[in-house]
């Protein structure tokens, strides 16, 4: 018999303190990640014994990382990253080796650490923080920029390496090198297999399934999540599946989530999904950041404070320089090189996890874990400011940076819309305007939530974005701000006002409304023309009735014209020249 589950206090405390800290950070211009980590330190080690971390908190924290990687996967269109795969590998591997050496060297130079500790510290500092980098890139909307893609690619290579190292550490002290090698091969094969499965699915089953469900918001969202959990589950339990074959292997749930997202990213519906997954990720990843420092004791966390600060001061510039050199070597432009490097200067949360596995495996003491935690927190905190102001820094130091970099030629930027027309919602009203707009503007982008419409539009050569215009990503993708003309068929004031907020100063905006007060409101917010279908139709209908009653001959002509229009083939009436409306003349 189940009993009533009281809601956990720990989650409530984490949520409330993070919210409080988040709002304070917002007011003082600090990034929210810092607020979350600090909140964790305050309610954790600083006030020991406040509460125990329950299962729910652990779950949400795990889900935070998994969803973050899933979200990242959704954004990765293979066509977009194919051309940078090779430079990514060429950057990631030397980078890890170099940072490993620097990290181990620093640790050896510091008195408390012996050789084994230094070796493990070296292994733990090689990675940059997926959580920080991706969160910041998402917040700044740069995840799909060239430097964003490079960073994400490098992070994924690092993720594969960390999984391997964790697998080795989890097995305890390895007997010999052969065992390490076997683990390595098994993990690589598994990652390759799951990647292939994901890609095959994205070419075969997924397009059929998602086409069916795309028009049902709730089912679409939940089936996507279900797909993600399938990969998470398989990755996490891969050892169980492989046990009968006599193979021991581990994969991280993050890896599974990423690959699940990758499969969906290749479908035309992925943008819509980004905005649906984002809020859940934000909520869960908050729990992750708060709990980074949460379950350490103060004495462990602060055992080697000075050492952690020294290590951070060495590692931050070292990481930056190593990345900078490697990106430049691979021929990226000076701005990409700078932005790509400055983003990656922190020590990852995986460093903490590697250290924790080291403690578990009996390699190091909890104090070293405390040192790693502090180092990660400190470098993350510093890096967040660098990332936040990376563009300003680049502008400030541009002459110097250009002087030291070789001239990069690597292309990778995406083409952007400018002075185009955007149609929000394809329906019987807006479709009439399509050919006219197409004639006048270079690009016409249509946002719509119906799969059939999108397919028909693409067939006709229009740019179509599948998604709901309530979502920021969708509106950003259509580049509303730079559009010359926006035509919305939505009658929802909320959607239209969001469009008007996004629109640039020289954008002409047409919107629809059902009520007079809404129309007034839209004009006040800057709309140029508000179409009120029911009122307009009522006027027209009344005019026809008047013509009928007064037996005007013009009525028949008007009726014939309307009927001809009705008969014109869907969905693209090329008849706008004839759309006179007989009674107006």
């Amino acid at each position, binding site marked *: 018999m189940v009993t009533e589950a009281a809601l956990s206090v720990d989650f409530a405390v984490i949520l409330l303190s993070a919210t409080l800290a988040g709002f304070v950070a917002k007011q003082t211009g600090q990034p929210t990640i810092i607020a979350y980590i600090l909140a964790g330190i305050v309610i954790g080690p600083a006030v020991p014994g406040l509460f125990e971390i329950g299962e729910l908190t652990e779950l949400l924290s795990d889900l935070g990382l998994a969803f973050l990687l899933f979200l990242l996967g959704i954004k990765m269109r293979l066509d977009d990253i194919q051309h940078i795969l090779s430079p990514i590998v060429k950057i990631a591997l030397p980078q890890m080796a170099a940072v490993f050496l620097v990290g181990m060297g620093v640790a050896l130079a510091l008195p408390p650490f012996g050789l084994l500790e230094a070796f493990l510290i070296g292994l733990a500092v090689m990675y940059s923080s997926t959580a920080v980098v991706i969160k910041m890139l998402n917040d700044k909307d740069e995840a799909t920029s060239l430097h964003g893609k490079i960073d994400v690619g490098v992070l994924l290579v690092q993720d594969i390496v960390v999984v391997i190292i964790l697998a080795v550490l989890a097995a305890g002290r390895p007997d010999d090198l052969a065992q390490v090698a076997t683990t390595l091969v098994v993990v690589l094969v598994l990652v390759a297999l799951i990647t292939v499965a994901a890609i095959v699915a994205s070419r075969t089953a997924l397009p059929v399934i998602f086409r069916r469900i795309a028009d049902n918001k709730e089912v679409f969202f939940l089936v996507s999540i279900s797909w993600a959990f399938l990969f*998470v589950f398989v990755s996490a339990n891969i050892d169980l599946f492989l046990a009968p074959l006599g193979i021991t292997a581990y994969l991280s749930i993050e890896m599974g989530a990423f690959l699940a997202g990758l499969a969906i990213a290749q479908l035309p519906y992925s943008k819509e999904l980004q905005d649906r997954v984002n809020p859940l990720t934000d909520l869960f990843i908050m729990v992750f950041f708060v709990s980074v420092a949460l379950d350490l004791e103060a004495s462990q966390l602060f055992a080697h404070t000075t050492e952690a600060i020294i290590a951070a001061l060495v590692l931050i510039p070292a990481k930056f320089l190593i990345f900078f050199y490697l990106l430049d070597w691979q021929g990226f432009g000076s701005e990409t090189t700078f932005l790509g490097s400055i983003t990656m200067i922190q020590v990852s949360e995986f460093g903490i996890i590697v250290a924790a596995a080291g403690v578990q495996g009996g390699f190091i003491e909890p104090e070293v874990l405390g040192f790693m935690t502090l180092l990660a927190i400190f470098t993350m905190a510093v890096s967040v400011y660098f990332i936040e102001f990376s563009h300003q820094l680049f502008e400030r130091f541009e002459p110097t940076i250009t002087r030291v970099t070789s001239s990069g030629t690597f292309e990778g930027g995406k083409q952007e819309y400018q002075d185009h027309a955007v149609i929000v919602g394809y329906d019987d009203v807006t479709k009439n305007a399509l050919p006219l707009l197409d004639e006048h503007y270079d690009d016409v982008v249509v946002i719509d939530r119906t799969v059939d419409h999108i397919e028909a539009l693409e067939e006709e050569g229009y740019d179509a974005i599948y998604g709901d215009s309530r979502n920021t990503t969708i509106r950003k993708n259509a580049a509303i701000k730079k559009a010359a003309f926006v035509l919305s068929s939505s009658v929802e004031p909320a959607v239209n006002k969001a469009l008007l907020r996004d629109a640039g100063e020289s954008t002409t905006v047409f919107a629809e409304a059902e009520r007079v007060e809404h129309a007034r409101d839209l004009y006040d917010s800057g709309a140029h023309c508000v179409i009120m279908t029911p009122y307009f139709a009522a006027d027209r209908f009344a005019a026809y009735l008047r013509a009928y009653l007064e037996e005007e001959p013009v009525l028949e002509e008007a009726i014939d014209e309307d009927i001809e229009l009705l008969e014109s083939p869907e969905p693209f009436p090329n008849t706008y020249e004839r759309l006179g409306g007989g009674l107006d003349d």
Partner: protein
Amino acid sequence: MNGLEVVSMTDLLTAVSLMFIVMGPLLLIANRFDLPTVPFFVLAGLPLGFVIDLDLTLELAQYGIALLVFSFGIGIDVSAVRTVIVDSEIAALGQILVVGTLGALLGIAFGVAPTEALFLGVAAALSSTIVGTALLNSRPNNNFVRDRLSRSIHFVQDLLAVLFLLLLAAGTIAPGPLATVVGYGVALLVAAILINQYLFDLIGRLAGDSSELMILGVVSLLVLFVGAAELAGISIAVGAFAAGLAVRHDPVEYLGLFNGLKSIEDFFVAIFFVTIGALVTVPFIELGWIPSVEKLVLAGGLVLLTAVVKPAVTTAILIYQGYEARSATLTSLNTDQVSEFALIIAIEALLLGYLTQNVFDVIIFAAAVTMVTSSLTQRYDEQLYRALAERGLVDSRHGKVDDWSTAPAEMSGHVIIVGYGRQGQRLVETCEELGQPYVVIENDPARRETVTDQCAAVVVGDAMERYTWEKANVEEARIIVSTAASDVVSRRILSFEFDTDVTLRANSRTTAMELLDAGALYVTHPKILAGQRLVQQIQALIDGDLTPAELREEQQSELDTLAEHLPPHLR
């Protein structure tokens, strides 16, 4: 954090993963056959009950409950509350008393303890907002009388459900404890209203343009309210409802917030419904034959009561209220399912020990079944109504039509206008300007007074019924102008084959063509008309005849003229 966590899942994560993995394929089936999702969540839960430890997921499920009620609270439209309360529609809630009593009696007849039978009554009486409104919203045009009626019936039932959840905490009908819980409930509501008035916009300002912080802030509010409810010893659902009221806001400014909350809600609510399914004791597998059959028979009784008796009672009450038979029947067919609120009440009662596993299972089964049957009765509602009407099972009560109509008996050469909305009103104006006699046919009793006041001749009745047309003296009319947006009504009007010109309104090009072929003189398709106008305006801009600023000025002054001519209810 221990190192092994990365490589091995926690039990809870495994449980949640399994829930979603099992749910996925079932949702595909639901989508394929256009059925509501809730029964499929429950179905996904049934096998999971054997493998997952429910103590783990129960807390997540509680958040699901909280978010479900929370979003109901957010969605409440205060002005709608006022119209429902002044409207005679509230009397339609008499069905709750009738059906509730029958439900309780059914339980007692089956030997269920009276306290538990009460819950059966509640389950039978309350209808589902999720299923009901989802089905309503799936229709292109949902401003019909029956849609408005179903909405307000669902709305009042949901409010009653929250009240019931509040009272449940007292665990007794003694006035003392009841007064205490009501006191707590009122305190939460007052706090919510104060926060909504004074604090919410402040949170919005402080969050600036960050949807992330706004969502955190609002989820924190929810957790605070839920925590307060828990401290006070009342249902967390009541706390969540109050939190929803505190956050209730026009979505215009906080689009990101409300979109984000929807994702979070969908996630946790899915877990809640699956957990419900997992809590069920599966008959024949976990139970012997005899108790299984008993349970299914009782569930069958509840289904019968909800899916057959409830709509019958509701229809009868609505017809008695003066609604014509078709609206009444179609409305009732939107309320023939067990509510998700009944599920919340059931799980809370189970956890509090007021409900035995047996009755809990019965309620869940009945809910799952009726949610499916309800979506079917809605899909075929017109056909069902026709079938009932032809067998004389629903009475059309011409007496009311006679009482309410003001059309003179011997009219001729007149225009018959169907519907008194925006279009109907313009048409009436036109006729009056031209001195042309006309009759308005309107079927919404709520509009009766307005129509009778403003129009010279009115028939208050359903355009689907021949009798209504006889009252309007159709054989002598000059033209029929229907503004009804329902394709069913349009087809029906043509099928009478009156010897009069007919113009109709259609929602799609295909229907418009079909109606023209079937003999209509003209069919308006508002969107095509608006499209014509739009093209002219864009062309003017492109040709440089107008600047955007000039267009804007012209349009605004047109709007002002329009607004002056409109009666307030149509603005």
